[in-house]
C-alpha cells in the first residue's frame, strides 16, 4: 500500500502543475474587462492547488524511500517541492484573507517554483541533460576507444578498465542515470557498491556474477538489448578484479600480465573495428560508395518484367534477376549499362542472348555475383570479367565453357568460386586459387536403399 502511494506521486505531481499554472493565466486574463472570474472560484482553485501540492510532497517522499535513488540526488527536488507546497498554501491564505491584491504576483512566484521543482524531478527520471539531446546521445553510446600505445606500460584502470566500463556500463550507471544506486564512472563510486549491498569488485563479486548470468536471466548485465562483452573484455575485467582491482597500477605490475597482454591486445585491436553484434548485418556488399541509381531506369526495367531490387532497405546497390525473361534485348543492355556501378548481383540464368552482357560487363565495377548458368554463351571474351574487380562468384553451369576460357580468369584477384557443372571444364582450380566446381556428384546405390522391412 505504501509502495502504491509512492508510485501515485507520478500521477499526483501533475495536478499542482496544471492547476497552479492555470490559475496564473486566470489571474492575468482576469485583468481584461470582458473576462470575469468570481473570487470564490480563485479560492477554490488555490485551495485545490495547495492541497495537491502537499499530497505530491507526501507521496514523493514515500517514493524516494522505496526507490533506487540516493538522498543526495533527490535532495534538491525534495526541498523545492516543499517550498512549492508552502508557497501555494501561503497564496491560498492570501486569497481568503485581505491580501487578495498581491495574489497575482504571488502566483507568479508559485509558478516559477513549480517549474524548478518539475525540472529537478524530470532530471531524476529521465537523467540529467535530457533537454540536451546532443548530450544524451553521448551518454547512451560512448564509443569504445582505447588510447594505448604500449599495453605493458598502460595504466590498468585509466587506460584499460575505465574506457571499457564507460562503453558498457556508464550509460546506465553514471551521472545521467543511476540504476540500482550504482555509479561506475569513477574509482570512488566503484568502491561504493550498489543497491544490493554486495561487494562489486571481488572475485565472486556482483560485477562478474551479473555478467556471467545467462542472457535469459533478468539480472544479467548488460541487459540483453545492449551490446554484450566480448570474451577478451570479460577476461580482462576478471583478471583485473581477481588481482585486487587496482586503480593506480601499470599492467606490468599485476601478476600474470604476460598471459593477459595478448588478450588485451586483441581487445584493443577489435575495438578499432567495432562489430555491431546486435544487428548482425551480413557484410556482403562492396565497401565502395555509389550514387543512387536513376529511378526512371529501374522503372523501365521493371516494366519489362526484370526484377530489380535494392540489396537491402535503402541500399544503393541493386540485385537484378531475369527470371521472368526469356531473352536479353539490346534495350535492356542499354538500361543495365546506365546503372552498371550499382549492380552487385546479376542473375541471367536460363536467358538467351546472354553473350550481349559482355559488351558492358567491364563497367560493372561492384558486381559480386554473376549467374550465367544455362545460357547460350558464344564467342565471348571471358577476360573482360577481370575488370569486374569485386566479382567473387561466377556461375557458368550448363554452358559450353571450357578450360581455356576459364584460364583467362587466372589473374582475377577477388574471384573465389566458379561453378562449371555440366560444362567441358576439367580443371578444379585456377592459378590465383579460384576454385572451379565441376560437381557431378553421385551417391552410390546401396543394397539397403530399396529393401523394405
Amino acid at each position: 500500500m505504501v509502495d502504491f502511494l509512492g508510485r501515485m506521486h507520478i500521477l499526483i505531481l501533475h495536478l499542482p502543475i496544471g492547476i497552479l499554472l492555470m490559475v496564473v493565466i486566470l489571474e492575468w486574463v482576469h485583468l481584461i474587462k470582458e473576462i470575469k472570474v468570481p473570487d470564490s472560484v480563485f479560492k477554490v482553485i488555490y485551495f485545490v492547488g495547495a492541497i495537491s501540492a502537499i499530497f505530491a510532497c507526501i507521496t514523493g517522499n514515500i517514493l524516494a524511500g522505496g526507490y533506487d535513488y540516493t538522498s543526495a540526488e533527490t535532495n534538491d527536488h525534495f526541498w523545492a517541492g516543499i517550498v512549492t507546497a508552502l508557497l501555494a498554501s501561503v497564496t491560498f491564505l492570501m486569497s481568503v484573507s485581505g491580501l487578495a491584491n498581491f495574489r497575482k504576483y504571488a502566483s507568479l512566484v508559485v509558478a516559477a517554483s513549480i517549474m524548478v521543482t518539475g525540472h529537478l524531478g524530470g532530471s531524476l527520471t529521465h537523467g540529467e541533460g535530457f533537454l540536451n539531446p546532443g548530450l544524451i546521445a553521448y551518454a547512451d553510446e560512448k564509443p569504445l576507444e582505447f588510447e594505448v600505445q604500449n599495453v605493458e606500460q598502460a595504466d590498468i584502470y585509466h587506460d584499460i578498465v575505465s574506457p571499457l566500463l564507460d562503453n558498457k556500463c556508464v550509460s546506465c550507471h553514471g551521472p545521467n542515470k543511476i540504476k540500482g544506486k550504482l555509479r561506475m564512472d569513477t574509482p570512488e563510486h566503484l568502491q561504493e557498491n550498489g543497491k544490493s549491498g554486495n561487494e562489486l569488485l571481488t572475485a565472486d563479486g556482483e560485477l562478474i556474477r551479473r555478467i556471467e548470468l545467462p542472457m535469459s536471466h533478468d539480472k544479467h548485465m548488460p541487459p540483453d538489448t545492449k551490446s554484450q562483452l566480448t570474451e577478451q573484455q570479460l577476461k580482462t575485467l576478471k583478471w583485473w578484479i581477481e588481482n585486487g582491482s587496482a586503480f593506480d597500477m601499470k599492467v606490468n605490475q599485476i601478476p600474470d600480465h604476460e598471459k593477459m597482454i595478448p588478450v588485451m591486445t586483441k581487445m584493443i585491436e577489435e575495438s578499432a573495428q567495432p562489430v555491431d553484434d546486435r544487428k548482425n548485418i551480413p557484410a556482403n556488399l562492396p565497401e565502395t560508395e555509389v550514387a543512387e541509381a536513376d529511378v526512371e531506369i529501374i522503372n523501365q526495367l521493371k516494366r519489362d518484367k526484370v526484377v530489380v531490387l535494392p540489396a537491402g532497405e535503402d541500399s544503393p546497390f541493386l540485385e537484378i534477376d531475369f527470371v521472368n525473361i526469356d531473352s536479353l534485348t539490346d534495350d535492356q543492355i542499354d538500361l543495365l549499362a546506365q546503372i552498371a556501378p550499382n549492380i552487385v548481383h546479376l542473375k541471367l540464368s536460363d536467358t538467351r542472348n546472354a553473350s550481349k552482357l559482355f559488351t558492358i560487363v567491364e563497367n560493372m565495377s561492384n558486381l559480386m555475383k554473376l549467374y550465367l548458368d544455362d545460357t547460350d554463351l558464344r564467342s565471348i571474351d571471358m577476360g573482360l570479367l577481370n575488370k569486374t574487380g569485386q566479382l567473387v562468384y561466377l556461375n557458368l553451369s550448363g554452358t559450353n565453357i571450357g578450360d581455356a576460357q576459364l584460364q583467362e580468369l587466372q589473374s582475377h584477384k577477388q574471384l573465389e568460386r566458379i561453378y562449371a557443372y555440366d560444362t567441358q571444364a576439367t580443371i578444379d582450380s585456377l592459378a590465383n586459387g579460384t576454385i572451379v566446381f565441376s560437381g557431378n556428384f553421385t551417391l552410390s546405390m546401396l543394397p539397403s536403399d530399396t529393401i523394405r522391412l
Partner: protein
Amino acid sequence: MKKIINEYKLKKSELNTRRLFLKTAGLSMGALALNTILPGCTQNTVSKAPIDLNPLSPRSPHFAAKAKSVIYIHMAGAPSQFELFENKPVLNQLNGQDCPPSLLEGKRFAFIRGVPKMLGSQAQFEQVGESGAWVSDRLPHFKQVADEVSFIRGLHTDQFNHAPAQIMMHTGSAIIGRPSLGSWATYGLGSVNQNLPGFVVLTSGGANPDAGKQVWGNGFLPSVYQGVHCRSNGDPVLFLNDPEEMPRNIRKKSIDAINDVNALTYEEFNDPETVARIAQYEMAYRMQMSVPEVMDISTEPEYIHELYGTQPGKESFANNALLARKLVEKGVRFIQLFDWGWDSHGVSRMGALELGFINKCRETDKPVAALLLDLKQRGLLDETLVIWGGEFGRTPMQENRNGVKQIYKGRDHHPSAFTIWMAGGGIKKGASYGETDEIGYDVVSEKSSIHDVHATILNQLGFDHEKFTFDFQGRPFRLTDVEGHVIKKIIA
C-alpha cells in the same frame, strides 16, 4: 432481373449503416485534421516509384540477405534423435533399466504411464567428416554431406502433441491463427517469378501433416501469402485446368472480366483481400502454363534420377526433393516439404524403430543428401537455406502405452530436447550448437527455442525479426512474438 437489381440495392443500403457512416466520417475528420497539422508531409514527399498494388511484387528485406530461398524439410511425426544424430553411450548402458523417478516427477507424457524402461539407441553411430559429427548407420548417404550442415542439438518446444507442436514449429504459436514461416517470408519478399507462387508446399508419405493446412496458412496476413499445396502425382495443383472444351483465350477473357469487377470493388472499399483475389486469379491463369512445366521431373537427365532415386509419376519424398531444387532454380522463395510417417511409438510395424522407422530413413536419406549435393554443384547451396527437423524429439525411455510393454521398440513424444540441422544460406559448415545431458533428456547448455530458429531463418533471409511486423487487431505482430535470439554461433 428485377430481383437481382433489388438485391443489389439492398446490399448497397446495408453498407450505408450508421456504423459505417461514423467510421468513415471519423476517419475523414481525422485525415482533415492531420492535413492541416502536417502541411508539407503529403505534398513534398511524393514517391517516385509507381504505386504497386500487386501483393506479390518482389521486395527487398531489411539488409542484404545471405539466403534467397528456403527449403524446409519437415519429417512429420517427429523422428527419433537417438537413432539419427544423438550418440548417448550412457543411455545404451542403461538400456532395459527402470527409468529413475527423478526424470518422471512433474512431467507429463503423451502415452508413457507408470515407470517406463530406458531404451538405448537402436542404431550404430560413427563420427564422420572433418567436423566429426555423430551420424548413425540409418543415414549412410547423409554421412557424405554431414560437413555441409550445422546441428542445433539443444532445441526445445512446449508442445507434446503433433498438431500443436507442428503449428508451433511453423507459426511460432501452438494456437492456430498465426501466419506460417513461409507466409511471413512471402509477405516480406514477394515472389520474383511472376508465374509461380512464392511459397510452395509438397507433401509425401501418404498423408498430410496432422496439423493440416495451418502449417502453411497465412493466418492474419492477406491470403495471397499462404502456401500453395502442389501434388506430385496427377495434376500438380487441383482445379487449375480449364473446363473441357474451353479455349484458353476465352478463359483469359473471363478472368479479365472478373478482375475488372474486382478492381471496381477495390476502388470502392479498399479491402486488400480484393487485391489478393485479383492477384490469385492472374497467378492461377499463368500457373496453368508454368506449373505443369516446372513440376514435370521426367525431363531431368538419368544421372539426376539416379542421384535422388526418383521415379517420375510416383508420390515420393525423392520426387519432392528434386522438385524443390527445380523450384529454387525458378526463384520460388519458400518450399516446404512434409514427409509423413515418423511417429515411432512402437505400437505397430510401421511405427517400430526396428522396422518402419528404418524404411522412412531409407526413403529419405538419399534424396536429402542428393538435394544438398545437387544444390551445391549448381552453385545454389550458398543462397538456399535448407532446414531439416521434426516438431519435437523422442524420449530416451521406451514407450509403455497404458503401462504395458510394447512388442515393438518405440519412443514417446519428448518436447524438452531435440535436434534439427540447417545447411547452406550463409550457415556455417560443420558447426554444432547446444548440448544435452548424457541420456539426451534435457538441454544442459546452449538451449534454443523455436523462436530462436525462426529469428535465425529470418536473419538469413535479410530480416531483423524484431522489426519485421504486421499490424493486426491494433498491434504489430511478429513471427517471434516477443522472443527469439539469432543463433549466431551457426552463422558463417
